[in-house]
């Protein structure tokens, strides 16, 4: 017993080192698995508070830019509204295939954004008290940003599309061929679209939109433009390089999307799989 205690005292620094190293590696590995929610995230009282304090100062410098974006979005929505009102007189039935009514949009402010690492996250200034929950989608007026991961009472973190763990269902605007959107960690303006079958009509400049298959994003939110594409080794799928519409390095305000039927659909799917 004496010897064991002596051994522990003699090697206490080495043992402490191994213990703490093990713990930090555990945290690292955990942060690479997408499904688990993390112990340690910037959606806590201290770091969230400090980030929102600095973003209060920073946001003044970009007010003009944000105003322009809002004007642009208003203009687009107004023109859509006018065409919608025109069509109302002729069309009186409800288009049930277009399920936009099932989504709730909440505006929020980005208080921290990174894009230079391999796994990037954003922090938003709204949390559980504002009705934000895990697995809600986050978009801007120009395109998609990511998916909510961790939520605290006042803040939430978003797993950015610029994250090697992120996989988002996306499709071509021209046809209904869909694939998944990933990021190779290099350029914050380009993401990769994989698993698009080689029979799909792909050409440079085509628009990529979100597919309706995920329960997170509504169908048809713009993502980016095809910049380059090539066939993969098996020659049955395309590897497409997509230039994002969104400038991921400069995001001020975002919309959080809640799908009110998500729970119902998920329950139904689970029921079907169980049988």
């Amino acid at each position: 017993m004496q010897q064991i205690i002596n051994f522990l005292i003699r090697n206490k620094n080495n043992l402490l080192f191994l213990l703490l190293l093990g713990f930090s590696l555990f945290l690292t590995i955990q942060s690479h698995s997408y499904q688990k929610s993390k112990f340690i995230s910037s959606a806590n009282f201290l770091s969230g508070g400090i980030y929102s304090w600095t973003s209060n100062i920073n946001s003044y410098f970009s007010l003009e830019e944000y105003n322009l974006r809002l004007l642009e979005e208003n203009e687009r929505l107004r023109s859509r509204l006018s065409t919608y009102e025109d069509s109302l007189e002729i069309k009186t039935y409800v288009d049930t295939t277009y399920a936009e009514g099932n989504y709730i949009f909440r505006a929020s402010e980005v208080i921290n954004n990174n894009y230079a690492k391999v796994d990037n996250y954003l922090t938003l200034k709204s949390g559980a008290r504002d009705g934000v929950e895990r697995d809600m989608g986050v978009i801007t007026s120009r395109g998609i940003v990511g998916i909510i991961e961790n939520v605290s009472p006042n803040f939430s973190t978003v797993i950015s599309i610029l994250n090697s763990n992120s996989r988002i269902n996306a499709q071509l605007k021209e046809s209904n061929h869909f694939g998944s959107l990933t990021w190779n960690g290099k350029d914050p303006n380009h993401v990769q679209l994989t698993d698009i079958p080689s029979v799909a009509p792909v050409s440079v400049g085509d628009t990529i939109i979100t597919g309706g298959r995920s329960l997170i994003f509504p169908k048809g939110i713009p993502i980016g433009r095809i910049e380059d594409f090539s066939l993969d080794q098996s020659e049955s799928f395309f590897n497409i390089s997509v230039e994002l519409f969104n400038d991921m390095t400069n995001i001020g305000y975002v919309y959080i999307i809640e799908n009110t039927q998500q729970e119902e659909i998920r329950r139904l799917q689970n029921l079907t799989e169980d049988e």
Partner: protein
Amino acid sequence: MNSVIVSNTVRFIVLVLLQVLLLNNINFLGYINPYLYVMFLVLYPFNGNQTLFLILSFLLGLGVDIFEDSGGINAAACLVAAYIRPTVLRFSFGVSYDYQTIKFSSTPAGSRISYVAILVLVHHFVLFLLEFFNFAHFLLLVKKTFFSGLFTILLIFLTLALFSRKSK
């Protein structure tokens, strides 16, 4: 002794805040960021308690990790750098370290540079290795370590020159 505790505490907090609020947003040429908070490990008293030093450097890295949402990569990198610091000190400063008589500001420039450079490069290598989490991008890893490390070393010496006391 008290002033040592106070100055190290203040340095700890200021470096973490400076790192997460300012330096993480530099992204020079897209991917080069200085990690100035390593300066805490450089300046920690040479004759200080090693056990406390390990715990403090772990907390330093964890503090940065909380803000960055990066799991435990900074904590692990700081811990490794802190663990090898006595070896690096002995390597750079030789015998004078063993007698614990040296002060950082009164050491020869060559050994001072080698001490800082080894510590920073080891920290950055572990940091980026865990960030990439595989060896597939080994070249990018080395490139990032080298350039970010250079940036950090430069910034550490600039800061030291700026804040050194001229009371000799």
